[in-house]
Structure formats: C-alpha cells, structure tokens
C-alpha cells in the first residue's frame, strides 16, 4: 500500500501513466531511428517494436480499506507496460541490387517501420503524456488545498 492508496494514490497512478507513455515514446524514437536499418545482430532488417499496455491493480488489495469501493480485482492503480512486442508485419522489399544486403534477386529487406504511422503514434503519446500532466497538477492543487485546512 503506502503510495498506492490515500492522498498519494493519484500521484502514483499518474506517474505510472507518464512512465508508460515515455517508454512508448522511447520505442517510437527507436523505430524511427532504425527505419532504414537493414542489418541486425539477429540477422535481417530491424523489426518494428510496439509497447503493450495493461491496467495495473493494487498487488495487496486486502490492505486497502477503500478497496471495497472499487472493482473486485482490487484498487485500480494505473497502467503498466507488460511487454515490448515485435510487429509481425512483413519487411518492406526495395529493389536495389548494388546494396550489400541485397538478396540474390536484387531486393533489399527494409524494416517494416512506416515513419508516418510512427509520427502519429508519437503525437498520441505526447498528448496522453500532457493529459496525465494535467491530472498531476490537479492532484497537486487538491493536496495543497487540503493542507491549507485549519491554517490561518
């Protein structure tokens, strides 16, 4: 419990989302950076990666007295990234016989990264990050306001 319940729970929830969105942004950056990488350690071109988000639940719901208010799975406490998966889409084949990674027919396998899709995902990640920042500021203003009770 601790940070997962009470006044500080929204901070923890929002922080989990901001961490997740930042990781998503990192993965998108990596995809764009490797949009033309035709050679990797595993062999073959770079394969596009994508993050998988799942809701996070309080690992010890029995200790949270507020839990009875919430869903049966326990207190929802944000989002977590359960994995970074590879996009199963096929590689982009480009005819370039002079390329050192060209196959016998003269085609080079380029990563299955579509830069435009990545840009759209990047904007989505930025906006989600900003939305959570708004929640963070609202939480802070509420907590500070509660601290003012009985003062002055």
């Amino acid at each position: 419990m601790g940070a997962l319940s009470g006044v500080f729970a929204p901070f923890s929830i929002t922080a989990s989302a901001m961490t997740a969105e930042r990781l998503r942004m990192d993965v998108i950056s990596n995809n764009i950076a490797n949009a033309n990488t035709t050679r990797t350690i595993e062999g073959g071109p770079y394969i596009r990666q994508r993050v998988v988000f799942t809701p996070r639940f309080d690992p010890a719901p029995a200790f949270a007295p507020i839990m009875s208010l919430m869903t049966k799975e326990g207190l929802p406490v944000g989002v977590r990234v359960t994995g970074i998966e590879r996009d199963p889409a096929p590689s982009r084949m480009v005819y370039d016989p002079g390329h050192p990674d060209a196959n016998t027919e003269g085609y080079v396998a380029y990563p299955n990264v579509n830069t435009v899709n990545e840009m759209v995902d990047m904007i989505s990640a930025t906006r989600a990050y900003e939305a959570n920042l708004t929640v963070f500021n609202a939480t802070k203003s509420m907590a500070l306001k509660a601290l003012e009770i009985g003062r002055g």
Partner: protein
Amino acid sequence: MIHPITFADPLAILQKSMDALSVQHQVIANNMANIDTPHFKRSVVSFQDKLRSALNINEPSSLWRTHVKHLPMFQSISLDDFKPDVRTVTETIGRNDGNNVDLEMESATLAQTNLLYNSLADVTGRYMANLRHSISEGRQ
C-alpha cells in the same frame, strides 16, 4: 456541533464529501492513465444522491424529518456508513481497440472535481476560522 436540519456535524459532511471527491479524482486519474490501454473500460463515481439520502435531504415533495427521533420514510443509510459508488462503464464503445475513455469528458469531470474539492477545503477552513473566532471570544 449538530446542524438543526440535517442532524449531522458539518465537519463530518465536509469530510465525507471530500473523501468521495478524492475517490472520484483517483478514478479519473486511473481512467486518464489508461487512455491508451486496449480493452480498458472507464469507471465513474456517483455519490451525490447517496449523500443526500444519508443526510435525509429528500426531494421537496417528499416528507421531511424535523426531529432526529422521527421515523424515516425510507431506510436511509447513516452518514458514518456513507461510501461513494464506483461503477465500471461497459455499455459504451469509444474506439476500435475497445477502450471507452473519453478525454474531453474526463478533463471536464477532473476540472469539476478539482474545483469542488478546493471549494470544500475552503469552506472547511472558514468553518475552522469561525470556531477559532468563537474560542477567542471574537477578539481576533
């Protein structure tokens, strides 16, 4: 101190309302955190009607209790047992990935919750200031 109409301690009412609003805030934070989670369903908090019934504030047309020993018309819960209801909305469909979090809706509720909470904190502070004023016999 007991309020003559609601028979409840004003501080207890404020406390319960602020508790309910902080639960609502937490639920909104969780909805916003899961804005990109596939198949996530948003949750909503409702407490106003329940709090009203806990305070015996009924509709204007219904009977009023003017004394704490009057029998209630309906079995209402006591303020001590009051808790907000959290419900997961599964009926609506938002996007193709099964997520139904609406950013505009959540932002609006967030702002509303924030303002209400801040104003209740302000009211609590003023109530305390009044008490302090009485304790000091109006000297300050």
